[in-house]
């Protein structure tokens, strides 16, 4: 079975935010509801200090707290598919904000309004695409919650084309953020395949999940600087 996971190497990351920009362009997220955010902080004691660049996106947890909360209120707008990707159905979301509150990683974004990406400068090409012609994950709606989808529109295409072996390698089948990293600090692939590049590198680098104490089983692994928060 194929199960997608991501590795982020904070030792390699230089904080350029290419991944953030790529996500913004690919998923045209609005400034109020970012799907990918760069968090930076310092570790160590002067004069031995280091800066940690830690990008955060949806962790696509094995036991997603957001889904549990959504199911509990009866909306059932959040699902986790057989490939491990957690998705929100905008048509089912009631905007109650339970997922926003329960996610320990602060991932779900409540989108109050769909604003122009470039206010006063007209709509961008992506904004001019009719909602019906967009992938369901890109049909922006006000007063619903949205978040990173692992670029499901690309993964879905790879699955349909029976080319899952090219995920993490080919441009059209790889999440935008992982594709653009100039220092190869990001890797994406099938964690269920012990021979996949991502599986091997997670093992080699002893990458860890963030906030394991919540027991949600996040599927994004981090190689952390010494002293970095986990």
């Amino acid at each position: 079975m194929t199960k997608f996971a991501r590795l982020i190497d904070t030792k390699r990351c230089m904080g350029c935010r290419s991944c953030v920009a790529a996500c913004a362009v690919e998923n045209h997220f609005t400034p109020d509801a970012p799907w990918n955010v760069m968090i930076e902080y310092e570790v160590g004691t002067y004069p031995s200090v280091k800066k940690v660049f830690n990008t955060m996106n949806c962790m696509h947890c094995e036991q997603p707290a957001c889904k549990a909360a959504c199911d509990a209120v009866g909306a059932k707008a959040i699902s986790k598919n057989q490939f491990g990707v957690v998705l929100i159905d905008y048509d089912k979301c009631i905007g109650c904000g339970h997922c926003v509150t329960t996610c320990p990683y602060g991932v779900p974004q409540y989108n109050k309004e769909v604003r122009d990406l470039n206010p006063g400068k007209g709509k961008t090409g992506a904004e001019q695409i009719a909602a019906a012609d967009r992938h369901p994950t890109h049909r922006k709606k006000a007063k619903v919650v949205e978040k990173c989808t692992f670029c499901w529109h690309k993964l879905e295409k790879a699955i349909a084309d029976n080319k899952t072996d090219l995920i993490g390698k080919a441009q059209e089948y790889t999440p935008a953020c992982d594709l653009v990293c100039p220092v190869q600090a990001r890797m994406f692939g099938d964690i269920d395949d012990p021979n996949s590049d991502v599986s091997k590198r997670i093992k080699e680098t002893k990458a860890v999940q963030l906030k394991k104490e919540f027991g949600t089983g996040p599927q994004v692994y981090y190689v952390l600087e010494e002293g970095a928060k986990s």
Partner: protein
Amino acid sequence: MKHLIALLIVGIAVTGASFGVADAAPKKGATKSLDPAKGYFHQLHVQKMTMTCATCHSSETRDILFLRKDDVVPAAMPGQVDRHVCLTCHQAPGKPTWYGAPAR
């Protein structure tokens, strides 16, 4: 006529059940309100569970590994919520839980 009466009874039953569900859950269009009087989350914790604000909110909390780290905290709000506080109830067996079993 019998069919009409049966349909009426079924209709009334379904409508009643719908209202029952709607009372128990947030309604379509409900917004993420931070107002303790209106927000569903606050209704549960403050009004039903009679928890104080300081149980969850702390002005000293600064969880850096949080995607919405720049969430604006209203001046009247007593600080951000440390999600670790949630674990005290929502990870315990036999209680409503959003989080899985504690990781080893």
